[in-house]
C-alpha cells in the first residue's frame, strides 16, 4: 500500500483556523502496533456463543459455512465435556428418549450448512403421515406429505445425534473456534463513551472500557472479550438474566413424561391423541422404536414414572387406543355429508380411514419427566447481546416446534451477521441485531400463540367445546386449502399461519 506523506499545514479558510495533523508516520506505526496487539490477544473473539447445545452449535456451523462469515473467530462457552471430544455414537446404542422432530425447513438448513450428511449416518426416521384425534371420538385428521406434494412431513432425530452431527460438521472446517469448558458467571458491557483518551496500543481491556467489546467472566476464572455475545443457553438462560431481558410467560402446570418404546413392526406415522389431561404423542425413531411424549399433570407424571414397566406399557396402550373414549368413525369416501362439496380438490389424506396406532410391546429406555411452561423474552437484542433458541422462547412440545424455532433463529442470525459484514457494519450494533429481532420475533410469537391456543383449547372437557374441536378436526381433514396451509406452516415453509401480506 502506498502512503503519501502529508506535511504539517496551517490553513486559514475564510476565518476558520484549520490544523491538519501529520498522520503518515504515526498512523503507520499505530497500524503495526494494533496488528501486533491483536496477535497477542488470545482472549478476544468476534462472536462468543454461550451455550454449546443444538442451537448454539447450529449458529456456529452456519457461520462456518458462509464465505462472508467463515473468517470470524468464535468462542463457545459450555461446560459439557462432550464438546471437546469427537463423539462416536454406536449404532447398537438404544435410542435416547430425548428426541426432536425436525421440520423440512430445518432439514434444508442442515443441508445448507453441511450437517445433514452426518445425521444420516445415524438413526433417524422420516415420517410422511400424521394422525391427530382426541378422546371424544368425534373427529380425527390425517395429514400426508403428498397433500403438499412433498415426500416427508418431518424427521425424528435423537438430540444427541443432531448435536454430534453439528460438532462433526464444525470440526471438519477450518473455522476458528475455541471451546471454553466452563460456565458464564458474569458479563459486562459498557456504553461507548467519547471522553476516554486515545490509547496508542489498544489492548482488549482498553477496547472493553471503550464499549467496543463485551467482557465475559467464566466460572473457572478465565475472562474473554467478544464483539457479540449470543445467548444460546436454554430456557434458564444466564445471558438473558445478566443482560436484564424481561420475560413474559406462565407455567402450564403440566409435566411431560418421555421415553422410548418398541413395537413389533415398523412405524412411519406420527400419532397424536389429545386426552383430557394433555396430548400423548407417538413418534417413530426408526428400527421399530418410537418415542413417547405424554403430557399430564405433575402428580400423574410422577406416578407414571415410578410405576413398574409392565403397568406403564399397559396404560400407554390404553391411552393410545380405547382409553378415555371411543375411536372416531372414519367417513368413507362414498358417503354424502356437509363437507362433500369441499372435496373437489381433496387431499390424499382426506380419504384415509382412522387407524389405531401400533401397539407398544415394551419400554426401551428410562422414563424422564420435564415441567412445561411458556416463556418469551420481551426483547431478543440489546447492544452486543442477542438471544436465540430456548433462551429467547420456550414453547409447549405439542407440535414438536420448539427446537425448529431455535434453528430458525440460528439461520436468520447468521444471515443477518453476513449481511452486516458485507456492508462493513460492527456486528454488535443494535441496529443490525434489530433486523434479526424484527424477522424472528413476530414469527416466534405467532407460533407460540398458536401452540398456546391449542394447549388451552384441549385442556377443557366441556360438551360444546368438544364439539367445536371435533368440527375443527373435520374441517382440517376435509377442507383441503386449510390442511395444506396447516402442513406448510408446521413444516416451516410458511412463516405465518395465514397468508398475510405484511411482514414479508
Amino acid at each position, binding site marked *: 500500500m502506498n502512503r503519501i506523506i502529508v506535511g504539517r499545514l496551517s490553513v486559514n479558510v475564510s476565518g476558520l483556523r484549520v490544523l491538519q495533523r501529520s498522520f503518515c508516520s504515526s498512523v503507520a506505526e499505530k*497500524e503495526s502496533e494494533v496488528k501486533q496487539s491483536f496477535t497477542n490477544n488470545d482472549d478476544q473473539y468476534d462472536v462468543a456463543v454461550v451455550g454449546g447445545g443444538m442451537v448454539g452449535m447450529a449458529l456456529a456451523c452456519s457461520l462456518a459455512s458462509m464465505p462472508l462469515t467463515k*473468517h470470524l473467530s468464535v468462542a463457545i462457552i459450555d461446560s459439557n465435556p462432550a464438546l471437546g471430544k469427537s463423539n462416536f455414537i454406536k449404532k447398537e446404542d438404544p435410542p435416547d428418549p430425548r428426541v426432536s422432530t425436525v421440520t423440512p425447513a430445518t432439514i434444508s438448513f442442515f443441508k445448507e450448512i453441511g450437517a445433514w450428511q452426518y445425521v444420516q449416518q445415524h438413526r433417524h426416521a422420516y415420517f410422511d403421515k400424521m394422525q391427530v384425534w382426541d378422546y371424544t371420538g368425534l373427529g380425527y385428521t390425517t395429514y400426508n406429505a403428498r397433500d403438499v406434494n412433498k415426500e416427508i412431513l418431518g424427521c425424528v432425530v435423537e438430540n444427541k445425534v443432531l448435536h454430534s452431527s453439528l460438532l462433526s460438521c464444525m470440526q471438519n472446517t477450518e473455522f476458528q473456534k475455541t471451546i471454553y469448558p466452563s460456565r458464564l458467571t458474569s458479563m459486562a458491557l459498557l456504553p461507548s463513551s*467519547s471522553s476516554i483518551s486515545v490509547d496508542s496500543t489498544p489492548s482488549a481491556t482498553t477496547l472493553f472500557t471503550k464499549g467496543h467489546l463485551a467482557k465475559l467472566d467464566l466460572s473457572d476464572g478465565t475472562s474473554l472479550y467478544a464483539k457479540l455475545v449470543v445467548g444460546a443457553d436454554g430456557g434458564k438462560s444466564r445471558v438473558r438474566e445478566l443482560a436484564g431481558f424481561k420475560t413474559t410467560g406462565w407455567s402450564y402446570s403440566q409435566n411431560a413424561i418421555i421415553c422410548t418404546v418398541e413395537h413389533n413392526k415398523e412405524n412411519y406415522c406420527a400419532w397424536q391423541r389429545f386426552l383430557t389431561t394433555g396430548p400423548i404423542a407417538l413418534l417413530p425413531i426408526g428400527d421399530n422404536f418410537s418415542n413417547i411424549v405424554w403430557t399430564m399433570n405433575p402428580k400423574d407424571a410422577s406416578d407414571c414414572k415410578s410405576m413398574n414397566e409392565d403397568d406403564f406399557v399397559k396404560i400407554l396402550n390404553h391411552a393410545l387406543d380405547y382409553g378415555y373414549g371411543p375411536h372416531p368413525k372414519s367417513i368413507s369416501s362414498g358417503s354424502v355429508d356437509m363437507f362433500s362439496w369441499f372435496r373437489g380438490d381433496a387431499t390424499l389424506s382426506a380419504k384415509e380411514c382412522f387407524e389405531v396406532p401400533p401397539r407398544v410391546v415394551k419400554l426401551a429406555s428410562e422414563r424422564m419427566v420435564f415441567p412445561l411452561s411458556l416463556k418469551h423474552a420481551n426483547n431478543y437484542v440489546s447492544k452486543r447481546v442477542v438471544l436465540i433458541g430456548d433462551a429467547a422462547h420456550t414453547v409447549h412440545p405439542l407440535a414438536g416446534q420448539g427446537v425448529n424455532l431455535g434453528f430458525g433463529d440460528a439461520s436468520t442470525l447468521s444471515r443477518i451477521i453476513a449481511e*452486516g459484514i458485507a456492508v462493513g*457494519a460492527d456486528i454488535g450494533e443494535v441496529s443490525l441485531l434489530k433486523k434479526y429481532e*424484527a424477522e424472528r420475533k413476530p414469527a416466534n410469537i405467532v407460533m407460540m400463540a398458536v401452540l398456546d391456543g391449542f394447549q388451552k383449547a384441549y385442556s377443557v372437557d366441556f360438551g360444546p367445546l368438544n364439539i367445536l374441536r371435533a368440527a375443527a378436526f373435520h374441517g382440517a381433514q376435509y377442507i383441503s386449502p386449510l390442511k395444506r396451509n396447516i402442513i406448510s406452516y408446521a413444516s416451516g415453509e410458511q412463516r405465518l399461519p395465514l397468508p398475510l401480506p405484511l411482514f414479508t
Partner: protein
Amino acid sequence: MAARHLRILSGCNGALLSVRFFSDSTLAQEPIASTAIDSASVSPSINTAENHSQLNNNKKHSAPSSLKHAELAKFSAIADTWWDAEGPYKPLHALNPTRLAFIRSTLCRHFRKDPYSARPFEGLNIVDVGCGGGILSEPLARMGATVTGIDAVEKNIKIARLHADLDPETSTIEYCCTTAEKLVEEQRKFDAVIASEVIEHVADPAEFCKSLSALTVSEGATVISTINRSVRAYATAIIAAEHILHWLPKGTHQWSSFLTPEELVLILQRASIDVKEMAGFVYNPLTGRWSLSDDISVNFIAFGTKNS
C-alpha cells in the same frame, strides 16, 4: 464517449418514471437488485438552459473552495450527535447499509474484487469527502480499504477520530479537516472518491466535481449520492422529512441546491467522469428500511469512472 448511450427523462405530465441504467456494454453488468418499484410519480419538466444559468449564479468567484459557510455552521451545531443512532442523524444511519451495498457492488465489479470476500476493498485507497462523523468511512475501513476521511467542520473530524479509535479495524482511518480542493493542491490521488450526501450542501457543484475528478486516479471510481431536484423530493425530503416527521432539522436541505440526475451526469462528464450506473434509494415506511431501487426521483446515487 461517443459510444455511450444517454437517455434523458422526458418531461411529461404524470408519466411513469422511466427506468434506466447508464451502462458500458464492454463491462459485464448485473442489474442492481431493486426491491421497490414506484408506480406513479410526477416527473418535473426539465429546462436545461435555466438550470445552467442557476449553476453559474451559484459560482462564488472569491472563495477557492466550493463550500457554503452557512452549511458548515449548521453541521457544526449538531456535531456531537453523529453517532447517536436515534438522534438527528438517524436517517443517515438507516440509509448507510443501503448506500454501502451499492458502493460494494459497483466497486467490486469495477476493480474486479471478490464480492464474497469479507474484506473486498483490501489494497484500495478510498477518500470519503464530507465524511462527517465517519458513518461511511468506518464500514469502508472494515471492508479492507485504506480510508481517508475529510470534512470541513473540525468538530466532525474530532468526533470521527474518537469514534474510529474505539475499534481497531477503523482506527487506521486517516481523518483530515480540509476540503477537496486542498487535497487536490497536495496532489493526492485515490482509487475511489466518494462524496455521499455532500454535493447538495456545496456552493459550486461543478467546481466540486472537478475537484473530485482531480482526486481520482485514471480509471478510478467516483461515487456521488444526493437528492434529486424534483417535486417529489420537495414533498418527501423537505416537507415530510424536515417539517412533518422531524427526521432532519429544518433547513438541512435547500431544494434549489438539489441536482437532477441529468445535471449531475453533465457536470461529471465535463470533469472527465463517465457515469456508468445509477440507482435510487427508496424508504418503506412499514418496515422502516431503505432499499436500492430504480426509482431515482428522490434519493439517488451515481457511480462513474475517470477517463484516462
